[in-house]
Structure formats: structure tokens, C-alpha cells
């Protein structure tokens, strides 16, 4: 038994997810947007761990491990793209990347 209510774990995860979503939607710096995506992935991991704790499933931990691996791959490729774009345009602001708009 755990004395932490399941609803509070999930509410905390939802709050973190909302913070990450607000970051992706409101900030225009590509680096901060990528960091906000990491926060959202962590919120999902917290949900998986909370459900695993309540149901006694180890599968949730393995799935969270896979999510961590995917997040690491995403960060590596995303940051490489940020570097390539910065070399080309000298900016990290997504508003200034509008080559396809013309």
C-alpha cells in the first residue's frame, strides 16, 4: 500500500505536461521548445511509473525506459538540426525560419 493517492500522481504529471505544452506553444526559441518537449516526455514517464506502482506492473518501467531512449535520440538529432540551422541562418528563433513561406 502506498499513502500517495493515484489521482495526485496523475495530477502532478498533467501539470508538468501542461507546463511543457505551454512552453512549446508560447516560446519561440527552438532550444527552449526542445527542453519543453523533454518536460512533456517526463510527465508521461511519471504517469507510467505511477500506474506501475499502483498495479504492480514492471512493464510500465520498461516502457518508460524506452521513452527515455527515444527522448535521448530526439535530443541528439534535434540539437544537430539546431546547429545546422544556426550555421545557415544565424538564429535560434523559429519565427525567422520562413524560407518556405516565400
Amino acid at each position, binding site marked *: 500500500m502506498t499513502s500517495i493517492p493515484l489521482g495526485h500522481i496523475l495530477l502532478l504529471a498533467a501539470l508538468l505536461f501542461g507546463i511543457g*505544452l505551454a512552453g512549446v506553444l508560447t516560446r519561440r526559441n527552438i532550444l527552449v521548445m526542445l527542453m519543453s518537449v523533454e518536460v512533456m516526455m517526463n510527465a508521461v514517464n511519471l504517469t507510467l511509473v505511477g500506474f506501475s506502482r499502483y498495479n504492480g506492473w514492471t512493464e510500465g518501467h520498461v516502457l518508460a525506459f524506452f521513452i527515455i531512449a527515444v527522448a535521448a535520440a530526439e535530443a541528439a538529432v534535434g540539437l*544537430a538540426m539546431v546547429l545546422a540551422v544556426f550555421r545557415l541562418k544565424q538564429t535560434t528563433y523559429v519565427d525567422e525560419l520562413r524560407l518556405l513561406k516565400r
Partner: protein
Amino acid sequence: MTGEQIMFYLLGGGAVLASAAMLLPPMGRSPIHSAISLIVSFFFLAGLYALLSAHMLSVLQIIVYAGAVMVLFTFVIMLLNLNADELQESRITPGRIAAGILALFVFGKLATAIQLTTAGAQSVDLSDPGFANFGSVPEVGRMMYTTFLVPFELVSVLLLVAAVGAVVLAKRSMKYVDRPLPPPAGYEHPAPSDDEGGHDAHAHGGGH
């Protein structure tokens, strides 16, 4: 209130505060401060995982997230060498207000769904002998190498592809960017003058 609950609310509040500090002006104005508050948030989350008996994930969170991913972030931020006027972003536009309200709306809907569905949830008893190793490295590792062997191997391929892709993308000389594109096949250069035409293979063959 038990000690477990007190720890949960302390760690959870810390994680939320650190994540919010990543975005809001005093800390969030420069990317490097955002990255540091995100690292703090990851440590709070690692504590939460340990509290919820996910010992292996708690260690992985620190090694992979706070260790590898955030080092990558801070390195890239320092490598970009942003100047001062790059870092100014405090205009409040209608689009950003609408985006903030949308995020709040998503959170509200999630919170409603959680309130409706989780009332009276009972957890399993981890003091039960069947759960003696719950969330430990041997237990999670065994499941990873038996039930989830194929996804595990696929993840290793994914990481390899990501590593190769990152190297290719971040390489300094991208020849398609530095040089103009080669002319398409079948394109003929406009009328070379006679003295330079001698070097061209086609014009040379025509001379014989």
C-alpha cells in the same frame, strides 16, 4: 499525513517550480538558465521515481537525462554563442496568450478526467513477497531481455541511427550548402567562346 506523502508533495512541488522557472522570465530569459532549471527538475523527478519504487528508472533518469541529454543541451547552447539581442523575447502577443490558454485548457480537461476516474484507487501491497524486487535493476532488466527483447534491440538500432544522423547533420562542411547545386543532366552551357572551348571534351571531339 505520512512521511511518504510529505516527500511526494515536496518533490512534486519542486519539479513543478523548476519546470515553471524554465519558462518564466527571471530564469527563462536565457537558454542556459532554462537548461539549469530543467536539470533541477529532472533531479526532483528522479526523487519521485525512487519514492514510487522505480529504482532503476530513478538512476536512469539521472544518468541519461541529467547526465547525457542536458550536457548535450548545455554544450549546444554554449557552442551557439548567442549574442545579447538574440536573447530578447518578452513580447506578449495575442497568439502567445491564446497558446497559454490552450495549454491551460488541456490541463483542465486532463484534471477533470483524472478526478472522475481515479477515486478510490487501491494500490497493490509492495510488502507482499511477490513484489520483493519490484522496480529493481534485476527485475526490470530481466523483463527487458525476455518479454521486450525485440523492442530493446530495435531501440539500440534507433540510437545508432540517431547518433549517425546527428553526426551527419552537424558536420561542418555541408557541400550542398556551401557550393551551388550542380547543373541538371542534359543542361548545356551557353555558347563557350572559341579559345576556351578547346578544353571541353565535346568541342574537342567535334574538331577532329
